[in-house]
């Protein structure tokens, strides 16, 4: 209990908003077949990969941007975006070792608190650092290799393990899935790849740190994690971007595959630049994340703390195909100023004795708008399916908004599905009570918010939980009063 102590960092600024002045190697603006061929060629991809990208592009051309989410934004001009931006290296490809990485980049990650020198690295966390469109460094790779674990950039996986990529890519999120997933499938530049072989428990947390630096560029990373039979892995994802007046698009895809008896835990602390207090700039975060419990007894757990981005649009989901599989989704989404979040989860119960849990905590402050949107679907064959969903919203200003849009569809009478939601104002009585015990208003707010989010924060690995609490405190700076 006492170890989750509050160390509020009151800091008016988005501290991750600096720009690294590094020579970039951008492609021309806009998107057509040629750009996609060039991305694929630059990365030295096999033919199957380029064909897949082109099919995705052709499909994307037939789609329209979805409008059902409760978010509003100016039109995105897809032909004004740079679809590929990489820090220039002497050799033109990924550095072989840290010694070859541009010192400017290493300094950037130091400044972000993500040391890439292994001797200084966080004990027990292997990091893959993605800067704009490419992975710049992966730590502890050798150590993991001795266990047969593949942890590398996606580009590298395409070259080194094409058979795994070919087998699993698009098997959970096909390139036809939705507008943003199709776009990502066509143009994705890099991302992380994890394969944990049969029976192996990955001994350390695997982590990717995403950084958007270039202006006017989109980031389209792709993450694919496969836990083979009986394997387990815990994966962390963190994100930041510089402060810029124009908005930037981030359309990622994450696919998780858990085979029989496997276990994947995926944690996100999302802190993309949220825009300024008047809603200028900020990242448009349109992300498709989905995991499939493909074998019996598999277990996938999503935990997310979303404090950044001008717009968050993501629904980390679980397809519970195997019998006795378990899907979990724990989320905190905070919107302040003019941020908008439309987030939630889908739990698709297919196998027998499948269980799912959804815990969603939305905090709305300033003019922020926060929506939970979720689907719990129990198919006719899903005997004894169980779901419990809890969605709570905390309202902190008269101009904010909080919505709950759950869909529950049950076709099996042995299922038991329970959904609860509540919305309430941060209590003036609670604030007064805490202040009368000597806490400042900000400390009181943080204490209440952390209490409100506790069920979710406790799911995060410890370092991340502390970081998440700080982020919540910073993001709520000045939200009450």
């Amino acid at each position: 209990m006492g170890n989750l102590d509050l160390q509020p960092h009151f800091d008016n600024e988005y501290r991750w908003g600096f720009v690294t002045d590094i020579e970039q190697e951008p492609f021309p603006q806009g998107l057509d077949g040629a750009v996609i061929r060039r991305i694929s060629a630059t990365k030295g991809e096999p033919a199957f990969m380029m064909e897949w990208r082109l099919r995705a592009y052709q499909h994307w051309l037939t789609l329209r941007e979805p409008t059902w989410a409760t978010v509003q934004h100016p039109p995105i001009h897809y032909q004004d975006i740079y679809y590929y931006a990489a820090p220039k290296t002497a050799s033109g490809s990924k550095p072989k070792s840290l010694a070859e990485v541009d010192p400017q980049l290493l300094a950037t990650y130091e400044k972000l608190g993500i040391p890439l020198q292994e001797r200084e690295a966080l004990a027990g966390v292997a990091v893959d650092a993605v800067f704009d469109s490419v992975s710049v460094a992966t730590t502890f790779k050798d150590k993991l290799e001795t266990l047969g674990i593949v942890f590398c950039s996606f580009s590298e996986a395409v070259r080194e393990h094409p058979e795994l990529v070919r087998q699993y890519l698009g098997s959970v999120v096909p390139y036809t899935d939705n507008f943003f997933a199709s776009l990502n499938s066509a143009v994705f530049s890099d991302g992380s790849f994890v394969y944990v072989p049969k029976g192996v428990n990955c001994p350390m947390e695997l982590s990717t740190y995403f950084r958007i630096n270039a202006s006017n560029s989109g980031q389209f990373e792709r993450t694919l994690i496969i836990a083979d039979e009986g394997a387990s892995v815990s994966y962390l994802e963190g994100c930041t971007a510089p402060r810029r007046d124009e908005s930037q698009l981030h359309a990622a895809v994450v696919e998780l595959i858990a085979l029989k008896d496997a276990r994947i835990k995926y944690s996100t602390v999302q802190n993309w630049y949220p825009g300024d207090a008047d809603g200028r700039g900020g990242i448009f975060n349109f992300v498709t994340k989905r995991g499939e419990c493909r074998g019996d007894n598999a277990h996938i757990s999503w935990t997310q703390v979303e404090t950044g981005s001008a717009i968050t649009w993501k629904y980390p989901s679980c397809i519970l195909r195997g019998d006795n599989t378990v899907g979990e989704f724990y989320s905190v989404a905070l919107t302040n100023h003019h941020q908008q979040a439309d987030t939630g989860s889908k739990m698709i119960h297919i196998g027998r004795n499948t269980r799912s849990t959804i815990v969603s905590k939305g905090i709305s402050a300033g003019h922020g708008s926060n929506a939970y949107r979720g689907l719990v679907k129990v198919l006719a064959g899903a005997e004894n399916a169980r779901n419990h969903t809890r969605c709570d919203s905390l309202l902190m200003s008269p101009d904010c908004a909080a919505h709950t849009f759950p869909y529950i569809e049950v076709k099996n009478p042995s299922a038991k599905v329970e959904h609860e939601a509540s919305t309430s104002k941060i209590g003036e009585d609670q604030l007064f009570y805490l202040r009368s015990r000597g806490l400042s208003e900000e400390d009181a707010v943080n204490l209440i918010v952390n209490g409100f989010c506790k069920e979710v924060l406790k799911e995060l690995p410890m370092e991340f939980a502390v970081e998440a609490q700080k982020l919540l405190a910073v993001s709520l700076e000045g939200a009450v009063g």
Partner: protein
Amino acid sequence: MLQIHNLHVNVAGNDILNGIDLNVRPGEVHAIMGPNGSGKSTLAQVLAGRDGYEITAGSVHYLDQDLLPLTPEERARAGIFLAFQYPLEIPGVANVQLLRTALNSLRRARGEAEMDAIDFLEFVKDKLMLLGMDDSFLFRSVNEGFSGGEKKRNEILQMAVLEPQLAILDETDSGLDIDALHVVAQGVNSLRNAAHAIILVTHYQRLLNYIVPDQVHVLAGGRIVRSGGRELALELEQKGYAWLEDKASQADNAADLMEARL
């Protein structure tokens, strides 16, 4: 320590307090009694600095400074503690977390070093022992799912940890069984010394059997209508509050209305 002079308070257009005068010196225990709606709780809330109360006249001084401009947390840090009549529930926040955060806020304000988690746990366990309370209290969410008696005991635990100079107990005794009443009395008496002062706001005489007051004041219609020693409380118990009705003005009804809403 505390000087209240001619205090008038208005809530949402209704006069609740109509000229309170009260002087509390270090080491003293004052009991404020009166029927429901007489303004007792309003007085306690005003002293702790709750919003929504308009001071239309009068002054309150605490340790020679003007109390009224201070925020609730500044008052707490200056040593004022209000045990709430209806303690709030704060889901997800462990009791021990609140206690330590509050204590360290006070210590920081006093320029003292903060207490680390281990020292604090030792410190708070002594307090628990003193009050005959269980360790499990510490790790439950603040007041969540507590019985009425547990909530009141929790208020006393907070008081014992924060060691205020001026403690105001707002009907802490109401609804308590005899065992819980003992715990409350023990907590209060352990705080009692030449430097600390205590104001007990209560409807019943019963608590005063365990905490013997130096002075008893009877509040009616937003005014102190009588003051005296302990014997006044016993007299009230025998006669009830009915005889006060003549003294209660129209404001009493207004106060009734307001307090019923609070």
